[in-house]
């Protein structure tokens, strides 16, 4: 069917060309920029730099700290989302009442712009003196905390914001897969006198494995490209306490105007993300 192939190409090529121009071309330019000296505050120094930018990464403590923060941020947010999301999904499966309402509530954080989520948390929840959390801890006699001003608490806060916004995703996906599990397996298990834990470990969890893998991979990609909520809540600070690679590459490029070096940091992030997406491809293939 040569006619069909030609027709298919004619339909697909415009989108393919557009994607090549809008995504692949800029990425090539990113790689090119990362081996250049592009410092807009010192434009006269611009020129080919070879691997200078990458060599600089090795001795840059801020880079290693941001790489570490990226792992911490991605690891904890994804783990929390899956554990809380799965727990809630299992729980909701047993409460038939109000499931619809909970679903609607779950959608709210997801559709909110991350920048607005960051601003809301920063101003209404975490702000000292009139944030609602400060009020709560004071009322409980725990005292006042500087949630966004203390380096460690700030990291906890941005992790909490991300987890708040995206746990509903894990919850909704896992709830949908739980609801799709065949009920007769449980009947059989009950007849075999399997306890609730045994049923969870030996039936539910293995059956949910594909859904959990999907959630983990997609959540990792989202966490690796997180920017707006942190930018709005802490700006990467205090100091560089919440500066994950995204924030570091942004600050290098658009605050310090050192785009060449920023491009090198972004390239590291690009390869991290590609490694995770590769996991998705492998997963799709094995199915």
């Amino acid at each position, binding site marked *: 069917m040569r006619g069909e192939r030609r027709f298919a190409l004619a*339909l697909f090529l415009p989108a393919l060309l557009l994607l090549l121009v809008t995504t692949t071309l800029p990425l090539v330019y990113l790689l090119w920029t990362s081996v250049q000296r592009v410092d807009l505050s010192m434009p006269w120094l611009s020129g080919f730099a070879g691997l200078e930018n990458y060599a600089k990464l090795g001795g840059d403590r801020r880079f290693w700290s941001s790489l570490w923060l990226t792992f911490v941020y991605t690891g904890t947010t994804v783990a929390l989302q899956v554990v809380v999301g799965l727990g809630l999904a299992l729980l909701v499966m047993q409460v038939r009442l109000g499931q619809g309402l909970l679903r609607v509530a779950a959608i709210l954080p997801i559709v909110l*712009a991350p920048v607005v989520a960051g*601003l809301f948390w920063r*101003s209404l929840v975490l702000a000292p003196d009139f944030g609602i959390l400060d009020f709560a801890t004071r009322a409980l006699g725990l005292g006042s905390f500087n949630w966004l001003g203390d380096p460690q608490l700030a990291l906890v806060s941005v992790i909490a914001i991300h987890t708040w916004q995206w746990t509903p995703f894990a919850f909704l996906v896992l709830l949908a897969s739980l609801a799709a599990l065949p009920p007769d397996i449980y009947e059989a298990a009950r007849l075999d006198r399997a306890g609730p834990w045994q049923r969870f470990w030996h039936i539910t969890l293995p059956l949910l494995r594909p859904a959990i893998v999907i959630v983990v991979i997609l959540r990792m990609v989202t966490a690796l490209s997180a920017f707006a909520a942190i930018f709005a809540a802490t700006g990467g600070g205090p100091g560089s306490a919440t500066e994950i690679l*995204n924030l570091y590459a942004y600050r290098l490029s658009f605050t310090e105007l050192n785009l060449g070096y920023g491009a090198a940091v972004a390239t590291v992030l*690009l390869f991290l993300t590609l490694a995770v997406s590769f996991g998705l491809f492998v997963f799709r293939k094995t199915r």
Partner: protein
Amino acid sequence: MKLRHAVLLAVAVLMMLVWTFPVLWGLLTSLKTERDVLAYPPTVIFEPTAGNYRDVLFGATSILPNLVSSVIVSGLTTVLTMLFAIPAAYALSRLDLPFKRASGFYVLATQMLPPVGLVIPYFLLLRRIGWTDTYQGLVLVYLTFALPFAIWLLVSYFEEIPREMEEAALLDRAGRWRALWHVILPQARGGIAVTLIFVFLNSWNEFLFAVVLGGNTVRTVTVAMFNFISLEQTQWARLAAAAMVGMAPVIALGLIAQRHIVKGLTVGAVKGGARR
């Protein structure tokens, strides 16, 4: 057993509160005067005012121009995306496309690129051709995340349509156009609507590209939120009102598309493409 049920219900209700709280509290805050906002302990009972909304819409710091910017950018992005994505998705899901598997992977990979890796080269490239702070520049950049997403979501909807429906129409070249136009498109109406909604929603919420590549001419509503925050003083109530106005469209769209949200979020991962 009764007790267990009550505990479960309590946890579910608590979760619901946690998820809705920031938005509900934002709504309350937007109806307060700046003085009521700063009251300690926080008040739930106060005299509501529409003043913040008036300021935010018609005052000196009006976000109306920003809403217009957002509508133009998101609208154009959505239209262009659909124009390119529908034929591409049809080819990927239904036709004998050469290198189909590789093409599907390529589209999926482009969807996962970290935005910060794109914004640096785009900043330099758009500056060179004078397209920073222009609608065409920002829409072009928005296609980078909108187009792969839309293609994959549409593929998953096209694949649900029973094949027999179009086979009758598949006779010759003109027949294929007719099959796409008269069989596939009407059948996939719902899927296309959902895709439209998600593309618009994602574009509306975008922040990084808008803040770096926008400017005084094109300043979307997500960027305009920062108008109410300065080093000296933050206008909490106005910020809350602006956020409410800015987020009303996406909350409404999210509620309309709520049944499809799981599918929209797991697109590309669950099934689809390159399976024929």
